[in-house]
């Protein structure tokens, strides 16, 4: 067996969807090229951008940082990073430490923001409460709020997240299956919000399968936090993911075709289902909100904080 590109007999990956067999160097190059192609095709970066990377220390965010750094080295963009510490014992600290080391290695501006400092409560403490809404509900909303705020404070022009092909396809299928057309229109490579307080979010890895990102960080010997959150459990997303992976065994191109199909109808969906979001403000924190309180503040009030 030898590399389909260079003939090197030391191969590390067989790409099911194309039949390609790759050596380490050609594999690494293929991932970086793929992300750069997405960035160019979807016009994710503009010269002079200051991109805030949402850096958890996991494989997806570290890969996002690594790929965007090649643009920084060529003086096309500037990069900064934010890490959210949700306060999850025996889990989060390792990721935070890894994020700090990557930021130091690259010499970029980096902030670690904890739920405790920001809201006076950790996710672990929320989970001690009775009648909580489930860890991931709070985690997602608080994380998003903290990242949006950090982007404004650090004067970032874009926020880059590590969403990969699997995440994106799960999102498409989940929202479709749930009939959640509102959220369905919000997916895609670049989210632009009407409210100017919300910084544009970009997903440079959305065409790369999760497995290939895992192999990429191991091949490049990038330090990442491989672990599962103690709160991760059977969720609808997990069930959808399992079903898609099962289909992908016999139909290796199915994730790509789902993404392509969505990309073709996305603009039609957006135009047809466009809603006039009221440009209200949260009465508690002043963040943009469609109701009297933003999501984060309505959770805080429920928690009596």
């Amino acid at each position: 067996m030898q590399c389909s590109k260079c003939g090197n007999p030391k191969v590390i990956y067989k790409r099911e969807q194309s039949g390609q067999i790759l050596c380490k160097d050609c594999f690494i190059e293929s991932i970086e090229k793929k992300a750069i192609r997405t960035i160019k095709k979807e016009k994710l970066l503009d010269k002079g951008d200051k991109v805030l990377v949402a850096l958890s220390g996991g494989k997806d965010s570290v890969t996002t940082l690594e790929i965007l750094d090649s643009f920084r080295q060529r003086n096309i963009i500037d990069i900064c990073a934010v890490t959210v510490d949700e306060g999850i014992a025996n889990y989060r600290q390792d990721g935070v430490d890894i994020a700090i080391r990557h930021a130091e290695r690259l010499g970029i501006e980096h902030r670690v923001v904890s739920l405790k400092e920001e809201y006076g409560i950790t996710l672990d403490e929320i989970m001690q409460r009775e009648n909580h809404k489930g860890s991931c509900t709070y985690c997602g909303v608080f994380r998003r709020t903290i990242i949006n705020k950090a982007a404004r404070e650090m004067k970032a022009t874009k926020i880059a997240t590590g969403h990969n092909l699997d995440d994106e396809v799960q999102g498409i299928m989940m929202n479709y299956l749930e009939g959640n057309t509102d959220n369905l229109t919000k997916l895609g490579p670049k989210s632009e919000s009407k409210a100017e307080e919300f910084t544009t979010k970009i997903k440079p890895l959305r065409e790369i399968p999760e497995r290939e990102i895992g192999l990429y960080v191991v091949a490049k010997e990038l330090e990442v936090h491989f672990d599962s959150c103690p709160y991760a459990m059977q969720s609808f997303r997990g069930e959808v993911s399992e079903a898609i992976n099962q289909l992908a065994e016999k139909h290796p191109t199915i994730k790509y075709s789902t993404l392509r199909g969505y990309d073709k109808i996305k603009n039609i969906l957006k135009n047809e289902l466009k809603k006039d979001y009221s440009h209200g403000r949260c009465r508690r924190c002043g963040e943009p909100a469609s109701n009297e309180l933003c999501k984060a503040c309505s959770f805080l009030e429920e928690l009596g904080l």
Partner: protein
Amino acid sequence: MKFTLKYKQINEEREIPDENYSIKDLLDDLELSAQTIVSKQNGELVIEDTVIEDGDEIQLVQIIYGG
């Protein structure tokens, strides 16, 4: 005919049960999905079709976690 398996806390010697015993066969025996694991043979990344040789050190790294 033996090899060393390293996976998470596991670090043990195992018998090679038959000729042409591949990493894929090992993953099946351990009931691990090839989709969530990458494998190294003597420190170098390899594909799952790789046949395990006498004295090999096989390291498995889980790259995908649920949740």
